[in-house]
C-alpha cells in the first residue's frame, strides 16, 4: 500500500495513506501516512461506527497541510488497540476439540435461517467468492468432505483456471463467512473471540476445514502446505 502511494505521487497524484504497521511505513516512506493503533482488519478502527471512522479519515486528510514529506503521523495510542491480535491464535487454541461425527451439511441447513436473517438485516454478505449460491452449500460440504479424504475430489463449479486447492480455499472462505454471519445474527452480543471459539471449537464445518488442513499438512507438497496454512484461520 505504501508502495502504491509512492507510485501514485510520482505520477502527479496527491496521496494520503492509512498505515497499520508503523515500522513498515517508516521503511517504505510513503508521502503521507497516518499510523493507526488498530489490528489488521480494522484499518478505520471500529465497524458500524461512522463517527469514529470519520475521525480517522479527518486525521489522515489533515496531513495534506504538511509543506513537505514524508509525513508519518501517529493516531493517538489511546484510541487502540481495537480488534483481535490474530484470529488464527483462537483457531490454534481450539482446533481438534470439535466432535467430528457432527453432520456439517446438516449444520449448514440449521444455520441457514440465521444467515438469511443476517442478509436481511444488513443488506450484504461476504459470501460469494465461489459464485455458488448458499442454497447449494450442502454440495460444497460434500466436495470438501471428499477432498478431506483424497486429492481426486473435484467440483463441477470450479472454473477451469482455478486449481482444486485454490478452489478449496474459496469454498472454505465462503463457508466461514456463511457460518460467522449466521452466528452474528443468532448471537448479536458475542464478540469476535466468542465467534472464533465457537466456529473452530464447536462446529462441524470448522472441524471439516481443519481435517483438510491436517491432511494437506501431512503431505510433502509445499504449495499444499501453504494452502493448508490459509484454511484453518
Amino acid at each position, binding site marked *: 500500500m505504501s508502495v*502504491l502511494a509512492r507510485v*501514485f505521487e510520482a505520477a502527479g*497524484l496527491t496521496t494520503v495513506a492509512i498505515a497499520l504497521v508503523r515500522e513498515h511505513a517508516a521503511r517504505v*516512506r510513503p508521502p503521507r501516512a497516518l499510523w493507526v493503533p*488498530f489490528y489488521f482488519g480494522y484499518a478505520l478502527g471500529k465497524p458500524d461506527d461512522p463517527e469514529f471512522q470519520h475521525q480517522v479519515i479527518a486525521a*489522515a*486528510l489533515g496531513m495534506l497541510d504538511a509543506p513537505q514529506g514524508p509525513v508519518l503521523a501517529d493516531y493517538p495510542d489511546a484510541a487502540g*488497540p481495537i480488534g483481535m491480535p490474530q484470529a488464527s491464535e483462537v483457531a490454534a487454541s481450539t482446533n481438534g476439540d470439535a466432535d467430528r461425527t457432527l453432520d456439517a451439511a446438516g449444520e449448514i441447513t440449521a444455520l441457514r435461517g440465521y444467515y438469511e436473517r443476517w442478509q436481511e438485516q444488513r443488506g450484504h454478505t461476504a459470501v460469494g467468492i465461489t459464485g455458488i449460491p448458499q442454497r447449494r452449500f450442502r454440495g460444497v460440504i460434500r466436495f470438501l468432505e471428499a477432498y478431506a479424504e483424497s486429492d481426486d475430489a473435484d467440483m463441477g463449479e470450479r472454473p477451469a483456471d482455478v486449481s482444486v486447492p485454490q478452489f478449496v480455499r474459496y469454498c472454505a472462505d465462503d463457508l*466461514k463467512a456463511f457460518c460467522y454471519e449466521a452466528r452474528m445474527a443468532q448471537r448479536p452480543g458475542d464478540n469476535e473471540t466468542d465467534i472464533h471459539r465457537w466456529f473452530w471449537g464447536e462446529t462441524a464445518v470448522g472441524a471439516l476445514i481443519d481435517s483438510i488442513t491436517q491432511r494437506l499438512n501431512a503431505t510433502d507438497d509445499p504449495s499444499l502446505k501453504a494452502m493448508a496454512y490459509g484454511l484453518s484461520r
Partner: protein
Amino acid sequence: MPRLEILSEVQRRMLEFFPCMEADGVPWTPPAKPLSETRVAIVTTAGLHLREDKPFNRDHPGGESTYRILPSDADNADIVQSHFSIGFDRTAIYRDINITYPIDRMRELVQRGVVGSLAPNNYSFMGALRDCTVVAEQTGPEVAQRLKDDGVDLVFLTPT
C-alpha cells in the same frame, strides 16, 4: 497495529522480518486545490472485488499483483473480499465494509461539501505482498494513469 512492543514475540518478529520495498527520498505532489474542490478516489489493498469479477488467484504467475475496479456507484452488497492473508480477523469486514473501504464515509464527505467529488472508479489490490515489483513497475503505474484519466486529484489509500 499497536506498537510492536506490546505484541507477542511471534507477531513482532513476523512484522519485523516482513520484506518491504525500502526507499530513500520521497515523491511529493502537493495538493493543487482546496479539499472542497478535490476529486478523491479510494485505493485499497484489501483484495476486494465485485461479485462478478474473478477472485484474486495465486495459481497464475503475477495473479496477486493484479487489481480490480470498484465503481463508486457499485452497491456495497456487490463487493466481496478474496484476500489471501489469514493474518486478520474478518468479522469486522463481515459487519461493515467501511472498516477497510470507507466508501460510505467518502460519499458523506462529498455530501457535506468537505470533499469536492468522488471519482467514478476506485481500485483494489492484494495486500501483504512479499514482492511488490510488478505493482511498483506495472500495475501501479497503470492504475495511476487510469486515475489521472478520471481527473482524480487525491488518492486515499487503505490497508486491511
